[in-house]
């Protein structure tokens, strides 16, 4: 019998494994959050980091639906928006400072956002979650359009076009943070990002979290082990709404403003792209996606007018060729290295990398030249001192030859791998 218990215990990951796989990454994440300020980032860098934190929580909440429960939503920004709006209202009550509200620190806003998001999820989820798949997606689209339209109609709640702004420096200080300067806001965001990551991760470890995965894979079977798939989806939906609302509460403090535009299809589409590009099959996928997309969204436009096109190409590329997203590459690579198979694959990887670089060369050439041509100011794309205008033969060579070569190389490496 002792023997048996030992075998049973071996099923579960050992304490050491659990610690290594679950606790260490979380500690590393916390340490990372703590050491970032040591690098003395600029204020715009901190602002960007803060937005990354917000997007990370938002993307993780979105992946509770898309990745874990298999529910494709086109209206997730509704919950972040409603949570955020509520938090801004609370901030204004705090600023008025009477009675109970006067004692609430602004630091706790994400908790209010969490509550409002959960409530919104509970109300809207009730009709939406009765069906999964395409009907769910379509309902979420319809609801998003309706809520966004309502955002412009009810000025007292949403403040019309200009939205509602608040002041994060009101109310009692918490942990000695005035939340005025953006680097103090960093600590606030870091704290709540950690809570968000921890919370969404913990959720995946609960019976409900596991059931949501089961429901994604096989809703019918779930029904025959005693669970209502609709109920599972509904509960997951409420939690996803809650964490989205929490991200909204973080954003309310960081940006001190919410506008009806925050409820619309545009941010909903953006979070879908970020999450998917990151990789919906992995817990860390949305985190990677959020970091990359926030960076690209705010900074890529400094370098090229074609940033939206690059974003679109990247998204379509991921959908077509990398269904597991960036996280898929990262984990695939580390797994291969860990398994000691680098020796077998490095050649094919190198070929593929070379192919991708060639393809990127062509794509960038084409896009940049096309954008300059389209603007018609006679500006010319001049990388590395080359003068690439539309009449230059080299432009066309660079636009076509590396593309063809690159595709051939990638195909070759794919063939090699399948052997």
């Amino acid at each position: 019998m002792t023997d048996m218990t030992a075998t049973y215990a071996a099923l579960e990951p050992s304490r050491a494994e659990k610690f290594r796989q679950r606790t260490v990454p979380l500690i590393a994440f916390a340490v990372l959050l703590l050491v970032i300020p040591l690098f003395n980032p600029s204020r715009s860098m901190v602002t960007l980091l803060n937005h990354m934190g917000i997007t990370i929580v938002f993307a993780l909440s979105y992946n509770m639906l898309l990745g874990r429960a298999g529910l494709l939503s086109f209206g997730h920004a509704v919950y972040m928006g409603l949570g955020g709006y509520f938090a801004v209202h609370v901030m204004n009550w705090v600023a008025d400072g009477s009675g109970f509200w006067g004692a609430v620190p602004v630091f706790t806003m994400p908790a209010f956002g969490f509550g409002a998001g959960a409530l919104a999820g509970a109300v809207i989820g009730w009709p939406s979650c009765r069906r999964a798949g395409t009907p769910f997606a379509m309902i979420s689209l319809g609801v998003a359009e309706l809520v966004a339209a309502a955002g412009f109609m009810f000025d007292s709640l949403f403040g019309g076009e200009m939205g509602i702004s608040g002041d994060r420096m009101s109310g009692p200080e918490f942990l000695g943070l005035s939340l005025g300067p953006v680097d103090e806001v960093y600590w606030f965001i870091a704290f709540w990002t950690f809570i968000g990551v921890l919370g969404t991760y913990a959720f995946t470890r609960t019976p409900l979290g596991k059931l949501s995965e089961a429901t994604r894979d096989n809703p019918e079977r779930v029904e025959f082990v005693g669970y209502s798939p609709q109920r599972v989806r509904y509960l997951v939906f409420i939690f996803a709404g809650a964490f989205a609302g929490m991200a909204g509460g973080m954003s309310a403090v960081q940006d001190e403003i919410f506008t009806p535009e925050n409820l619309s299809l545009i941010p909903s589409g953006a979070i879908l792209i970020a999450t998917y590009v990151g990789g919906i099959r992995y817990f860390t996928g949305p985190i990677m996606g959020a970091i990359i997309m926030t960076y690209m969204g705010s900074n890529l436009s400094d370098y090229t007018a074609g940033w939206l096109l690059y974003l679109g190409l990247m998204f379509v590329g991921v959908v077509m060729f990398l269904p597991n997203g960036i996280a898929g590459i990262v984990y695939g690579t580390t797994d291969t290295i860990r398994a000691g198979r680098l020796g077998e694959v490095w050649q094919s990887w190198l070929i593929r990398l070379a192919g991708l670089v060639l393809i990127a060369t062509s794509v960038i050439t084409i896009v940049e030249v096309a954008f300059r041509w389209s603007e018609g100011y006679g500006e010319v794309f001049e990388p590395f001192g080359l003068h690439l205008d539309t009449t230059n033969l080299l432009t066309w060579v660079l636009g076509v030859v590396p593309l063809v070569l690159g595709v051939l190389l990638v195909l070759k490496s794919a063939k090699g791998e399948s052997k």
Partner: protein
Amino acid sequence: MTPALELTDLRKSFGPAKIIQGVDLSVGKGERHAIIGPNGAGKSTLFNLISGRFMPSSGEVRLGGELISGKKPYQINRMGLSRSFQVSNIFTNMTVRENVRCGVLYSMGYGYSFWRNIGNLKEVSEKTAHILDEVGLLEKANLPAALLPYADQRTLEIAITIAGGADVILLDEPTAGMSHSETDRAVALIEKASKGKTLLIVEHDMGVVFNLADRISVLVYGEIIATGTPEEIRGDAKVREAYLGEEAEDAA
């Protein structure tokens, strides 16, 4: 004593097609009851009616005396009836252990719990391990279910079905597509797992049926034409005529 499962004049039609035309059946507690019949006789439909997947057009299904027809599958499951599927119906993206655990969870009282760490639920882990051990999948516990060989997937199907500890178990062709040795192992497993429980089984393999069942019902064109012990069924002229033919001789 109330029968574990009782069907009264159960009927189901899809449009004009009458698939089940008035089935009466009573399965006693602890009985192993097999349903046989030619293809298209409505065996799977009957299972779907009992387990709540389909709504009966008329008639009643009672589980331990309580009316269950008209209830949702998950409600019926919670009342103590669990079923398996003819085509493996497992959670392919999860590991074997997680699959079984899904089956265990509700019965251990962890409904839609979102405040507990699933890894810390000791009873759940032990029960899961116990069932994995019982069905012989302990070694493959951490494999993704999709990677299991076919026979193991069928076994997993049964494991999920019995995991919740239901008193009444419905197995839909548990040995379909298995080799002889695999079938033997499956039968042994079913015998072991259904000890003290009520079992209703649909099966094509007559060897399995006659070995396993206490009683047998023969379903032809949506009607039960005979119910009895294996001997009675073997001797029943109507059954021979309608269905068994020479096959029965061989199986016996």
